[in-house]
């Protein structure tokens, strides 16, 4: 503590304040961009699914429904906040904040382009996986504290699903780490430049497949949206949440989806490297890849029906984990022989 105080009042304290100020400004810019994206991701989703079902999607609010996200946000902001009488109040209050906290903090290690990453730590992937594990706490706590049968079942299902697919996801990334020799996400992108298409997509195709399936299960998206299967569980673990608390869960879910898309683009598709350089927009190709992946999320939602819970579990444990392990052994063997 004295060391900290000495630093605070040493001549270098101006440097420290400047450094912290720069970091805060960077974080504010990143959060601003991400929130803008998250506001329009559901709009994009509704438009895509609408057109796939020969509908128009949102059209009423603003030209082509472009102001719909603002209307939705305002509505949620002014909604009454209902907390069930028998709920465990403090846990009920805190769990949406935990979900949002884990999803948002992960953004710190995601590189947007060559030099722009908020925390350039050497354990990037490990941090991402650790944070997504912590996200399960928010889900379990909300399901437990609501004191509702639907929420309880949703929370149970969700936590079992998330931890099952986390193993497959962790294993699918081991192949990428063997090939790049680093856990740092910027280094992984740099390592991909030597490979065809400037990406690991061809040598790591099995890993990419496992990662895609696991990413959909991790973010509770269709066809693995059993925790919030509306035809049987109403809304799953956030059945009892309303107004802004519900909005925080929603925000966390869409930030989680965005993160999964970004990690897929960075680890398997070559990040911000593209067929040619786009002047002035260094993050152009990353954005294109993220949006393409996002589109696939929506496409799958419009195409595939929901899995049954036993099918979901046996797919995870009996197919995805052996496949990912096989990929690890295969990548290691090929790397050893060369």
């Amino acid at each position, binding site marked *: 503590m004295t060391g900290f105080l000495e630093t605070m009042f040493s001549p270098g304290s101006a440097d420290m304040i400047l450094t912290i100020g720069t970091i805060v400004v960077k974080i504010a810019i990143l959060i601003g961009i991400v929130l803008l994206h998250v506001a329009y991701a559901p709009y994009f989703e509704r438009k895509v699914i609408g057109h796939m079902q020969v509908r128009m999607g949102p059209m009423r609010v603003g030209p082509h429904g472009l102001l719909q996200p603002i209307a939705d946000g305002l509505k949620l902001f002014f909604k009454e906040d209902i907390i069930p009488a028998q709920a465990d109040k403090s846990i009920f209050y805190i769990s949406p904040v935990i979900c949002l906290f884990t999803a948002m903090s992960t953004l710190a290690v995601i590189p947007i382009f060559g030099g722009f990453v908020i925390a350039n730590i050497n354990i990037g992937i490990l941090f991402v996986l650790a944070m997504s594990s912590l996200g399960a706490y928010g889900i379990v706590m909300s399901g437990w504290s609501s004191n509702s049968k639907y929420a309880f079942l949703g929370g149970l299902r969700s936590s079992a699903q998330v931890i099952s697919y986390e193993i497959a996801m962790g*294993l699918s990334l081991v192949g990428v780490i063997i090939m790049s020799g680093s856990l740092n996400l910027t280094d992984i992108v740099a390592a991909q430049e030597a490979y065809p298409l400037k990406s690991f997509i061809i040598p790591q195709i099995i890993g990419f497949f496992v990662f895609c399936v696991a990413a959909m299960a991790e973010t509770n998206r269709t066809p693995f949206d059993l925790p919030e299967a509306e035809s049987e569980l109403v809304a799953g673990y956030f059945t009892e949440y309303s107004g802004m608390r519900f909005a925080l869960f929603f925000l966390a879910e869409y930030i989680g989806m965005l993160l999964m898309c970004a990690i897929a683009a960075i680890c398997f598709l070559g990040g911000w490297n593209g067929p040619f350089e786009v002047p002035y927009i260094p993050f152009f190709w990353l954005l294109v890849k993220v949006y393409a992946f996002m589109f696939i999320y929506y496409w799958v939602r419009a195409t595939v029906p929901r899995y049954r819970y036993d099918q979901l579990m046996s797919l995870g444990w009996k197919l995805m984990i052996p496949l990912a392990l096989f990929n690890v052994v295969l990548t290691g063997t090929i790397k050893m022989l060369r």
Partner: protein
Amino acid sequence: MRIITGMPGQYIPSDYLPILIFMMIATAFGLGTLVVCSIFRPRRTYAEKLTPYESGNPPIGEPRMRFSVKFYIIAMLFVVFDVEVVFLYPWAVVFDKIGLFAYVEMMLFIFILLVGYIYAWKKDAFTWD
């Protein structure tokens, strides 16, 4: 937060300082939204509104009921297999540097794990009925 004060007047922040700040901002954002929102939103509650949602019927029985033992088995399997993934990570990072010895060692490790995996499969730990 690691502060290196090697030279007087020089300040070098740790790589993890931005993460700490990011976590603080994320928490403040979540809590701040709820606090600001609590000023504006209406508060018109009555007893029926505060009952747990059960399609309009009065709730019957204890909501936190007993649940399938399968969830416990999944949780235990997760602990075993996740530790294995954690062991694979450092091996994968230094794969280039340590060569054949580590490769053989790790294949042995995966083989032993596979035996356990097949045992769990044969014991029907992965089937859900």
